[in-house]
């Protein structure tokens, strides 16, 4: 069992909390403060995004944050550096688009991630059918390749994905891109039931989860809650980074209350 799986299995709360932010956003320095706020707010794991010029699984909020990071010259190495600074305190999972992995060199990137202490890698545009070598490279270095399933995935595909999954399965709550939404999909319990019936790997839900009410709802059916765009918006809208981080800590603590 991987470290992430052990973390899920040994938890004493309904669901684990995994906040997301884009590596190097709003700046590399201020990103450290955001990650500190994640820990202060009670994050069980942290998801850190590697900025990419063409993030086609992301909505406007994450897109803008990656563009801002790229404009400052943030590279995958910078994000690996950030990950290594925090990985000893909290499990870190990286989200990275496939072209960045490919350009870095698949094996070389997985090796660098493992060296940085990263526990899992999420590649949102690498479906299981294209990911065989990547998943193998991760397995060889003890890093979980976190695979995604979507509400549109038929049962046979869920089975196929579950067969290669480790760490946790990232369940996309709605057919769509990342971004805060006013309500969760009514089909979510049904969808998570279909996934649960086909795997023992823990399930975490992301995309559109943006309030403690959403988190409470998700925790009834899943093992983990991923929140991203809402947190980035808090940094966006705050007058300064200190204020944004205080809002993040307060919000994450509220979410943690409902996850108890």
């Amino acid at each position: 069992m991987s470290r992430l799986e052990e973390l899920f299995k040994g938890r004493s709360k309904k669901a684990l909390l995994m906040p997301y932010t884009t590596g190097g956003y709003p700046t590399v320095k201020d990103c450290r403060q955001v990650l500190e706020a994640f820990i202060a707010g009670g994050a069980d794991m942290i998801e850190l995004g590697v900025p990419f010029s063409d993030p086609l699984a992301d909505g406007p909020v994450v897109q803008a944050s990656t563009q801002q990071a790229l404009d400052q010259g943030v590279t995958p190495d910078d994000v690996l550096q950030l990950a290594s600074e925090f990985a000893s305190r909290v499990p870190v999972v990286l989200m990275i688009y496939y072209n960045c992995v490919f350009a870095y060199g698949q094996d070389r990137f997985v090796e660098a991630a493992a060296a940085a202490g990263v526990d899992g890698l999420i590649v949102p545009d690498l479906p299981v059918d294209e990911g065989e070598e990547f998943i193998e490279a991760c397995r060889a270095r003890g890093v979980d390749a976190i695979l995604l399933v979507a509400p549109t995935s038929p049962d046979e595909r869920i089975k196929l994905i579950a067969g290669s999954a480790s760490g946790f399965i990232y369940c996309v709550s709605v057919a769509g891109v990342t971004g805060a939404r006013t309500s969760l999909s009514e089909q979510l319990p049904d969808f998570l039931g279909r996934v649960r019936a086909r795997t023992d790997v823990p399930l975490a839900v992301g995309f559109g989860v943006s309030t403690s009410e959403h988190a409470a709802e998700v925790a009834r059916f899943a093992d983990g809650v991923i929140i991203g765009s809402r947190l980035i918006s808090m940094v966006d809208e705050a007058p300064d980074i200190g204020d944004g981080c205080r809002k993040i800590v307060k919000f994450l603590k509220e979410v943690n209350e409902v996850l108890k």
Partner: protein
Amino acid sequence: MTIQSRFGPYGGRYVPETVIPALDELAAAYERLKDDSGFRAELNSLLKDFVGRPTPLYFAGRLTAKLGGPRIYLKREDLCHTGAHKINNTVGQLLLAAEMGKKRIIAETGAGQHGVATATAAALFGIPCAIYMGIKDIARQELNVVRMKLLGAEVVPVSSGSQTLKDAMNDAIRDWVGNVEHTYYVIGSVAGPAPYPALVRDFQSVIGREARQQVLESEGRLPDELVACVGGGSNAMGLFAAFLDDQVSMTGVEAAGEGLDSGKHGASIERGQRGVLHGSMSYILQDAYGQIIEAHSISAGLDYPGVGPEHSWLHDEGRVRYDSVTDAEALAAFTLLSETEGIIPALESAHAIAWIVKHAGDYGKDGVVIVNLSGRGDKDVHQAARALGIME
């Protein structure tokens, strides 16, 4: 036979899991219908009576004389309804979408030709349609924006990233991810995730099938060379596909923009590296970290940092030569063809003309060359006039 999803190491389906089932559904529908006699009959009837096929293979006598040979033929895709080859593909895909019971159409567009062709086919089938277009392209292709609106399409301005075709395609994919169950995505080039590259090639391959038969009729032999411009590469694949098993040389002409060494060009094959963009593995313009670099070309249709995966494979295999011409050379060819043949070509197609102008001497007087005149230049007259100093 199942639909080709890989061309050597290129192609594939590098997209979010959410749309994988839709790609499976599309591949299955196309597989079922492509050799169905009813589907073929309906497609052929639309190509004949709505698109206006077959298009002529025109002997460009004055251009031939001016260059002193070879004998140059123009495949007149500019005479297709809507003014470019793009409609061959959109009519085919709309027929597929209608058969699949899809209720909404989306597409991306650069120069606006694919957007117009999609809006046209959507109107023909009575299905609502939204076209994603970068705000830079909206500004330089106003005529096509108006045409799309007249055809009842919604034009969605894209202000992210490079604000051109690349980002229009990102946003179209994002829309599709969110509406995948009832929406059909009409990709306009031989790019994107499988099965699109093979599907679009097949719908465009009518160009080469006609040209092959026409040149055999007029010359009694196959040509020595085929020339076509390459952005994503649909008109080139459409012409080349029917000749791949023949002893015929082929050249794909990319946009050298302000010069290959200026950093401002669209030459993905000549100057790109292998990578993944918009769902497929191919040659792309990128930096050392895999960030996509903006392309540049005077022609909006060639202003794309990727290329269809089959072109990358044909390049590696050495089956097709890929070369490039600059904005200035394309502009000169634009003028030359207008003055010598009475045909105003699209700036995209002018790249193919410019290539044969440069290389005419490589063929004997009796050589035979087919140039794909993929579109007409009405959409480009304002931009050309500015560049040529005809207008302020």
